[in-house]
């Protein structure tokens, strides 16, 4: 399980570098507010690749998936609720 074939690692590494190129390219195109969304989507993809293949999450028990998800889920709680304050401060 732990010893994946080297091809998987190489492909993952190459994909990561390709995505890096893509982020940089996308940053220089004016997409308006979409720039940030695109950049974050690419980053999320990269993070997912690293976790799934380099960190072997794809081949792990479902319990591990829960543990991995928990950190991100709690982070999103923090961001969403705190930003709900910042975004609605101007309302009257």
């Amino acid at each position, binding site marked *: 399980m732990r010893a994946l074939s080297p091809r998987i690692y190489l492909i993952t590494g190459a994909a990561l570098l390709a995505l890096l190129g893509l982020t940089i390219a996308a940053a*220089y195109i004016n997409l308006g507010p979409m720039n940030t969304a695109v950049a974050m989507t690419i980053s999320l993809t990269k993070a997912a690749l690293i976790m799934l293949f380099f960190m072997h999450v794809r081949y792990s028990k479902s319990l591990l998936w829960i543990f991995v998800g*928990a950190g991100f889920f709690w982070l999103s709680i923090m961001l969403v609720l705190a930003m709900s304050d910042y975004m609605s401060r101007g309302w009257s």
Partner: protein
Amino acid sequence: MPSLALPVEHQFDDAGQQREAATLGMWVFLSTEILFFGGMFLAYTAYRYTYPQAFAEASRQTLIAFGAVNTAVLLISSTVMAFAVRAASKNRRALLGLLLLGTAGLGALFLIIKGFEYAHEIKEHLLPGSRFYTNASDPKHVELFFSIYWVMTGVHALHVTIGVVLIVFFAFRAWFTNAFLNRDTPVELLGLYWHFVDIVWVFLFPLIYMIDRHS
């Protein structure tokens, strides 16, 4: 599965249980790390939302070429680390040491590049505090950006430094001791840590260097 003749700590029944506990423990630790960095990500998000123009202006003052190269360096180091873990599980300890040293070397390269970048920013008075200076149109909030920039990259660099030290240590253990004979869990955990540090940077890179680069 490594040979069962291995010593298992007294609280565990067998090596399988021990390995499962260790992996689970590492992931719990990584979750805490996510929230540790998360506090800073919230600060970043709140201020970028409040001062979009100042943040864009400040971001354009960062050295994107350095950032991009550094991202590539870390991504490659992660790939090398993946191979190192593989070598450990195949019990090829000479190769393991070599690959670990390669990973550490790339990590050190990252730190050196980051160091040059920091030096440049200090010279340009972009270190917050009384000597901070910028001719940007909204200097206060540019300073706020750089406060966050220094803290986030600084804490990340600290993590990289810890990683490099540990990896070098592990490399020598692989070569000169029997620590990893039939025992790959420690290396695997180290790998998890290193990949995590990489992931943090994957988010930092666009957030710091690439706000409104097109304009």
